[in-house]
């Protein structure tokens, strides 16, 4: 089946989530995404759970496997000058380049935009590091945990009387790839129309801060510093999580419920059978409910504690209310809506076996995302890419192998 990026080749340097998840969007729509990797400096996701003697070694990393499905891997030792030369030929041959090393790494190899663009005037290239390529703190090193802290998400997530926790999954690692895919695709679209290339410098921290514009504007306009507020809302009450009957094996189960306005509240009161605590006229307005929110949450919890969370969510939705069962990660694989949308697909990996991988959240009327292969083993596609795509001679390829360049 023909897809949007069937003719596109992306060369990828770097690792983790922030860079590689971005190129997955393109790979899922037909692009050939080639990761340049090495055994000397493996992607840190390949090392996340690594211990000496691990069966499958660097290819046994589940994180890497899930995030890099549909891609290819070329092994190049960048500590060898011949390796750098091969990487440069790939860079000039590919349609675009994505990298998320610390600033300066690409330049050290002569693979930075300023150098490459002299030989490839219409080059499209994106760099995605924590703080951007310029400024006094550009070399500050960090992963998503630091990005989440510096962009303000940590401070805003958690309970007001406790330390901040940050959204699970270090959020700049999931926001950045979306920015990067958007920016890269828009630059490619522009190139098809104008013939001009572009260099994109995406700072993961800045992307996160733009998302939190509401917090920044509240400070600029009114001097207000937004704080953690648990699950409560400034505009709605009750708005939170309510513990339900535990799972038979003892696991906690929770319901999320958002009562957005006074009409919702009236519906909820009827749903509950108009108990004495709920019919008080003072609770009919959002201000009244906010004033008694502690007590309200206690009363509601006493009810939900005896209920099955999934059944209760279904009944509340049937009554027209905004409610959902809290899914744990295992529950997602049985979620009717995710199944309907084909969120998870299966791929066959030489070390990990048959395993799920995810598709993105956009369904296209003509060109849906397709999962067609598992993540590559380190260097799995070196011969194919160099010999068949780059059309390197057999003798040169052999000599690179003999010199230990391709590992």
């Amino acid at each position, binding site marked *: 089946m023909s897809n949007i990026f069937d003719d596109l080749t992306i060369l990828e340097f770097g690792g983790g989530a922030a860079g590689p*998840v971005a190129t997955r969007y393109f790979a899922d729509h037909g692009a050939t995404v080639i990761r340049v990797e090495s055994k000397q400096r493996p992607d840190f996701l390949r090392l996340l759970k690594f211990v000496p003697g691990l069966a499958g070694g660097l290819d046994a990393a589940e994180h890497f496997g899930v995030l890099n499905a549909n891609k290819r891997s070329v092994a190049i030792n960048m500590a060898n000058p011949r390796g750098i030369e091969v990487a440069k030929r790939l860079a000039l041959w590919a349609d675009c380049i994505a990298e998320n090393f610390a600033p300066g790494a690409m330049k050290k190899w002569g693979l930075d935009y300023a150098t490459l663009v002299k030989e490839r005037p219409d080059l499209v290239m994106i760099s995605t590091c924590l703080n951007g390529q310029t400024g006094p703190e550009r070399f500050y090193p960090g992963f998503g945990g630091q990005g989440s802290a510096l962009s303000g998400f940590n401070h805003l997530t958690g309970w007001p009387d406790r330390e901040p926790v940050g959204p699970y999954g270090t959020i700049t690692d999931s926001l950045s790839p979306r920015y990067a895919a958007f920016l890269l695709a828009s630059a490619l679209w522009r190139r098809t129309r104008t013939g001009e290339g572009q260099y994109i410098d995406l700072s993961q921290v800045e992307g996160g801060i733009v998302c939190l514009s509401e917090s920044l504007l509240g400070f600029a306009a009114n001097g207000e510093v937004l704080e953690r507020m648990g699950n409560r809302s400034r505009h709605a009450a009750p708005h939170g999580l309510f513990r339900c009957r535990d799972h038979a094996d003892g696991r906690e189960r929770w319901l999320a419920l958002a009562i957005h306005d006074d009409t919702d509240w009236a519906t909820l009161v009827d749903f509950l059978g108009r108990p004495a605590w709920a019919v008080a006229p003072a609770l009919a307005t959002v201000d009244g409910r906010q004033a008694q929110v502690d007590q309200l949450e206690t009363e509601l919890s006493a009810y939900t504690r005896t209920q099955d969370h999934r059944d209760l969510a279904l009944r509340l939705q049937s009554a027209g209310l905004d409610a959902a069962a809290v899914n744990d990660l295992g529950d997602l694989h049985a979620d009717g809506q995710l199944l309907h949308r084909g969120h998870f697909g299966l791929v066959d990996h030489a070390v990990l076996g048959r395993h799920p991988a995810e598709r993105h959240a956009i369904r296209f009327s003509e060109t849906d995302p397709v999962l067609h292969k598992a993540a590559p083993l380190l260097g799995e596609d070196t011969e194919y890419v160099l010999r068949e795509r780059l059309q390197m001679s057999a003798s040169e390829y052999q000599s690179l192998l003999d010199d230990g360049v391709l590992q």
Partner: protein
Amino acid sequence: MLGNLSGVRVLDLTHEPGFFAGKLLGDMGADVVKVEPPGGDPARRRGPFWGGVDDGNRSIVWLALNTSKRAITLDWTQPAGRDALLALAAQADVVLETERPGVLAAAGLGWAALHARNPRLIVVSITPWGQTGPHAQWRGSDLTVIAASGNLHCTGDPDRAPVRCSLPVSYYHGSLEACVGVAFALVSRERTGRGQHLDVALHDAMVMPNIATASMSKMTGNRGQRAGAFFRQSKSVQREIWPCKDGFVSFALRGGPARVPGLVKMVQYMDENGMASEALKTKDWKAYNHNLLTQAEVDALSAEFGAFFKTKTMTEIFDRACKENLMIAPAITAREIAASKQLAAREFFIDVPYPDGTSLRQPGAFALTTAKDGVTTPIRVQRAAPRLGEHTDEVLRERGFSSDQITTLRAAGVLG
């Protein structure tokens, strides 16, 4: 120079979950027209307000997420309003919408009708659960979609309920996903000549932020657990967010080639302050592997690092981190972000002018773009968020409506 999306015409029918998408497209140079019901979007009347003034044009959420847009009022639930919207859609490249599935179709403005009128049009629907499927007609909002995504289950302290961010993270994720879709559909349209309907679900969009662990639960059996300020390794639980003298810092005891040099320098920093034990100073960091640490070893390390952090402020720690490449960061607020030297050097914040002559400092470009000659294709806030109906006449005239047509529509109450 023009932005990457300059020349792209967008009709933005969204409510709050989609505000951010239109803003990003506008910041990239697209011509974004916000279409609101005559009374205005409800978010205009939701506090807090700039200076505490609730006049429909000063709500913080509105001002923050509707930059780079013009605004018209148009009641598309009336037949004359629907026809006017179809006429606008005939000249547009993109429609963004967040109605419950079926609502636009019932008004004669569904994908089929829009596609028939303008085959090149790209329609992006952002909803909590998606256009079809068993939950398509469910209500949903930030709290409930994150609850259903697995992300909430894993966020927060183990002894309390799962907990969310004070701002609606799923709306940002979903809007970014919509923007990816728009750019992909524009590329696709170059090949096929046709637009597509994109069905974005906030629920799905919040599964990816679990960073592979949703898929991995099938492989490892790990259904996810809340660890609060901690992180679960295979053999131990390790602190990730630490109290310091005046707040909190994010720091991990994890190793690997990218992290070990920073750990070594952190110990030097502690030693300069007389707070590194002999055991820490003589540790063989080359052999350090966080996956092999026992809980007792983690606790011993944590006691030393934790005691040291408590003697330093967030600013002291971050200054040292920038100087010495230490992988540690303060959990900062809007106040510190507004004062950042790094952001100032990149001219990240801009003063956005407002019609009354005042201005506000707002976050600007989400990336810097340059071409080979050093010329930029700027991403920037093109204009302040629009006042209610500010551009109704301007946009309608520009799109070919005569003065008589506009007068007639206004008399019928279609324009408010």
